[in-house]
């Protein structure tokens, strides 16, 4: 058993040293996925923690969930009822999903979130809240189908989460002062993704059922966030930072 505990530490340090050398989000996401597998995880997510009172949207830095679970999650606005999100907002310590309490009778939506996660293989999981300044909190969470996490493994995962979060922000910000201002909203991502697929502003407006001016505005704001001078450059940058995928 003690050999295995030493292995967890070694796994974490090797993984972090390797992540440090990577320069693309693609590499970091890939290596993080394989690095977390020995702990029993099959996916992870690095995101902001939405303030439930402010009804803010959850911003995703790196999406490592299986089966487009993140899209499904955001589409259904699960973060509004996710007990893991609620727990992140009040816990300074990392915790297992099972430690995030909810009452399935008074909060059937919370149960729905957890069932949806299970349906893609996320039976249990671990979450690391990361406090930023001014009361803002980010979350690194990972899930899978594992037995028991021993305390040493939890500490190793905590460390991995801290470095992975840090690396994700550095890659998304790409030298810009505030990484959080470079994260696109859902609407902006949609508009850019359709644009990347070769649709005109008018076509996108028809597809998404909003005005052409609104689409143009979304693309303009997205380009500004990504420090790009035009739509093409914005698309390239959004793909590079993995905010949209082709």
């Amino acid at each position, binding site marked *: 058993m003690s050999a295995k505990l030493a292995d967890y530490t070694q796994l974490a340090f090797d993984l972090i040293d390797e992540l440090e050398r990577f320069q693309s989000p693609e590499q970091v996401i890939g290596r993080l996925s394989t690095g977390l597998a020995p702990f029993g995880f099959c996916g992870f997510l690095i995101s902001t923690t939405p303030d439930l009172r402010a009804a803010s949207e959850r911003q995703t830095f790196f999406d490592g969930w299986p089966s487009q679970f993140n899209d499904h999650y955001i589409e259904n606005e699960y973060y509004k009822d996710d007990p893991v999100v609620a727990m992140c907002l009040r816990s300074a310590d990392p915790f297992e999903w099972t430690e995030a309490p909810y009452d399935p009778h008074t909060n059937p939506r919370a149960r729905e979130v957890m069932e949806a996660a299970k349906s893609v293989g996320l039976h249990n999981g671990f979450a690391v809240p990361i406090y930023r300044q001014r009361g803002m909190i980010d979350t690194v969470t990972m899930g899978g189908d594992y037995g028991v996490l021993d305390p040493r493994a939890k500490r190793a995962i905590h460390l991995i989460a801290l470095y992975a979060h840090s*690396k994700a922000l550095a890659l998304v910000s790409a*030298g*810009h002062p505030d990484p959080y201002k470079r994260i696109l909203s859902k609407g902006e991502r949609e508009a850019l993704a359709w644009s990347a697929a070769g649709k005109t502003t008018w076509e996108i407006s028809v597809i998404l059922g909003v005005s052409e001016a609104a689409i143009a505005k979304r693309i303009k704001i997205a380009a500004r966030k990504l420090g790009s001078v035009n739509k093409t450059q914005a698309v390239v940058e959004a793909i590079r930072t993995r905010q949209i995928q082709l």
Partner: protein
Amino acid sequence: MIHIVTAENRHLYEKEMLDHHRIRYEIYVRENNWKNLKVEDGRECDQFDTEDAVYILAIEDGRVVGGSRFMPTIKPHLLSEVFPSLADVRGVPRSPDIFEWTRLFSVADKRQRRGDADSVTGQVLCGGLEFLLGEEATAFTIVTEAYWLARTHTWGWKLSPLGMPALVDGQWLVASVITADFETLQATRRRYNIDSSVIVRHGITRPAVRHVA
């Protein structure tokens, strides 16, 4: 500009050093509410404010607006004496070419100008790296709150952890060793739009480590 203050030229900075301890009190004791800090007469000083410490001070029109402290790791320092458990996996690095970087601060009214060449944080970061390169240091260690990792990463710094995170006074702390090289200085300069040296030297300042070794 960033002034380098060692034991040898400290007499030229008496007023500025007093101000710096007062600012540290304002920031670490009053703003950040750090526990177990020694306070004397409204100034924060700890057991590492010794002859071995090298300070860098950002001074604008005679006013101290930011700064930092460096300790040679071959001497007693924060990580070796107070938080050795944070380096429980890889050990506390101790070498003449490795410094410990602590007490990085800028005064409250100078924290908004992010990304500009006159950003105090940018000046202190670039000044610190320049100082290290001048000392022929290859690396430095830091003990930070977990959320600081992300900031250091966005400055283009290359980190390696020394141990597991630990909860201290309700904050998760992490110890890391960071590469000091020209590339790191260049990345930090780019990040803050700084294109040349920010350092000023007054009086005799010999290399800090040879001096204490």
